C-alpha cells in the first residue's frame, strides 16, 4: 500500500514484505494548527502539521506557522477531534442567506464591525 503522505512517497522506499517498518512511520497524526497573533486575539486556523504526538506537533507548527507572522502562541489539536457537518448538507444553511428571508441576514453585525473599526481608529481621541 502506498502512503497517503506525499513526503513518504517521494522517498521511493522499497516495498518491504509485510511493510512493518513503513507501517510504524508512514501515518503520523494530522493536527490542525491555530495561530494567535497577540494576547487576547482569537486563535485563527492556519493549516495543519503531521506529528506523532502533540508536543512535536507544537514544535513543527512553530517552525511552519510561527516564523513569518507575529505570534504569541499556537494551538494544535487532532484533526480527528474536530466535528463538522458534511459539505453534502450545505443546503441546510441556505435559508439563512436566501433572498426570500433577507430579514434573517444579521446585517447589524456589519454595522457593529464599522463602529468597532471607527473606535479603534479613534482610540487615542476617545481616551
Amino acid at each position, binding site marked *: 500500500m502506498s502512503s497517503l503522505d506525499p*513526503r513518504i512517497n517521494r522517498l521511493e522506499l522499497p516495498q518491504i514484505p509485510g511493510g512493518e517498518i513503513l507501517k*510504524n512511520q508512514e501515518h503520523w497524526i494530522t493536527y490542525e494548527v491555530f495561530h494567535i497573533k497577540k494576547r487576547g486575539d482569537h486563535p485563527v486556523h492556519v493549516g495543519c*502539521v503531521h*506529528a*506523532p*504526538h502533540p*508536543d*512535536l506537533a507544537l*514544535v*513543527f507548527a*512553530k*517552525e*511552519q506557522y510561527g*516564523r513569518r507572522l507575529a505570534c504569541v502562541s499556537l494551538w494544535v489539536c487532532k484533526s480527528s477531534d474536530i466535528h463538522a457537518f458534511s459539505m453534502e448538507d450545505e443546503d441546510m444553511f441556505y435559508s439563512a442567506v436566501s433572498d426570500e428571508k433577507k430579514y434573517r441576514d444579521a446585517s447589524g453585525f456589519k454595522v457593529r464591525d464599522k463602529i468597532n473599526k471607527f473606535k479603534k481608529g479613534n482610540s487615542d481621541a476617545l481616551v
Partner: protein
Amino acid sequence: MHSIKNLLYNIADDLLIMGHRHSEWTGLGPILEEDISFSSLAQDKIGLAYQIYKILNETEKEDLPDRIAFLRNESQYRCCQFVELPNGEYDFSLIRHFLFDHAMDLRFRMFGKSNYQPLSFLSRKTAGEMKYHILHADIWIKQLGNNNEISHVRMQKAIEVAFPYSLGMFETFPFEKELIELGIYQGEQEIKISWLEKISMILKEANFNLPDPEKIKPVFGGRTGNHTGFLKPLLEEMNEVYSSDPETEW
C-alpha cells in the same frame, strides 16, 4: 581589555561553526519539518555569532565582522573540536545540538548577570531563541529515547561518541581567571557543573546513560587553535565566496 576578546572569540567561533554544520542539513533533513528546524537553528547560531563579532569590532576594535568570520587562518579560529566534527547521521547531529545548546543557554543565562554590558544586553535579547532551541532538542531526545530499540541504541552510541568532545566546550583559556575576578562571568567550570546537572536529568528521563565525566578524557585543543582535520575543508567551503573578493560590496 585583551582578556574579554578571548572569551568572545571562543563563543562566536563555536556558534559560527556549529551554525555552518547545522546548515549542512538544509535539503537533507529526514523529514521536512526537521529540515526547516535545522536550517532555522543554523540561522540563529550564525546570527548570534555575528552579534558577537560585532561586539569585537565595535567595542574591542577588532576587524569587521565579515572579515573576522571569513578571512582568518584555521589556527586563528578558537572553536572547540566538538563543533567541527562532521554531522554524521541524524542521531549524532541531534545529540550534538542537545549538548551544545544546553551549554550555550546556561552560558548566556550567566552572561545576563555580567558587568560587561554588551554581553548582558545580548543575553536578554537571545533568551527566547535559546529557550526554543532547548525545547526542540529535549523533545527529540525524549522521543528517541523512549521510542524503540533501534532509536535508543543509536542515540546512546552517539552520546558516547559526542560526550568527550562536548567537554571540550569548557576548555580553559588565557585570562579566564581574570574575567572571573572582574565579574564578567563565573568561568567555564561553573557552566560545566550546571550543564552536567541539567543534561543528566533529561538524559535520565529519556532512559539514556551519560558516561561518568570523571572517567572521560575531554578533547581539548580548540581554544588554542589546535583543530581536527575536519575544520579546514569546512572553512574552505564556508569562506569560498567571500574570500574570492573580500572588497566586494554585498
